[in-house]
């Protein structure tokens, strides 16, 4: 157990509750950009406040931050690897009819352009 200076936890909790109120009321305006900022922007701020002040990541050994960041990066890599199969529903295993049609159309355009030159 590490001895360290403790921040004012009640104050941080009050800020988190204030941010929660904003994240609920903001989207009620019905403006998309306001919803994105108040709902998801504030979620990132709240998560940062909890990780920094409650989990004490700011005074933890850097190794921990690097390890957690590596896990996060790998998660995004796995995500990027599978995203095309979901976002482009037709086809599977990296064989996408719509992509092939697009490529075919693109090659025709290039061929057409070359013929003129």
């Amino acid at each position, binding site marked *: 157990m590490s001895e360290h200076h403790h921040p004012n936890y009640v104050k941080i909790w009050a800020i*988190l509750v204030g941010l*929660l109120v904003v994240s609920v009321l903001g989207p009620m305006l019905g403006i998309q950009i306001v919803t994105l900022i108040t709902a998801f922007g504030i979620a990132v701020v709240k*998560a940062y406040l909890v990780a920094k002040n*409650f989990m004490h990541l700011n005074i933890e050994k850097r190794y921990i931050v690097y*390890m957690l960041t590596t*896990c996060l990066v790998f998660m995004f890599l796995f995500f990027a690897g599978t995203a095309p199969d979901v976002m482009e529903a037709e086809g599977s295993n990296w064989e996408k009819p719509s992509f092939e049609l697009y490529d075919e159309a693109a090659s025709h355009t290039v061929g057409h352009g070359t013929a003129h030159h």
Partner: protein
Amino acid sequence: MSSRPIATTRSATEIPTGKLAVWWLLGSEIVIFGGLLASYIMYRLAHDAWHAQAAATNTWIGAFNTLVLLTSSLTAVLAHQAAEEGNGPKAAKLLWATIGGAATFLIVKAFEWTMEIRHGYTITADTFWSFYYTAAGLHAAHVLAGAVVMVFVARSAARNQELHRVELAGIYWHFVDIVWIFLFPLLYIAK
């Protein structure tokens, strides 16, 4: 020669082994929850029809449970502070308050799900609801697991024993809080 297992006495990274284990656990949880949430976002963006389904979730219930978890995180970190000061009984009381928060969260969730299921929003009703119950259910399982662990930690802390465990339980609990911080806007606000 000490009779304690070597894993509890060594610290290869200058981090106590127990704490390091909790951080590694959370590293794996990042991939589990991160993958689930990323998949949800991907499907959500690809299917406009999900908006209509998402409109059926109750924002106020979600907000109340967010308040409960934020408050339980406060009591968990105050328990950690009390443990550092060597005040085991105070740490135990604060951990019981955190367990109370976990119980409140799960009770509210049980009522919420009962209401939704009665309205026909079951896990097989729609892909949105499949994600909803999977993500919130996996999170609720973590809340339950955290509460059970904290019961044992609080019991030993009350006798001023194994006070370092209070911090370890707290770190896990704050992560559970962070996951909900992201689940709340995704499932309850984005409509």
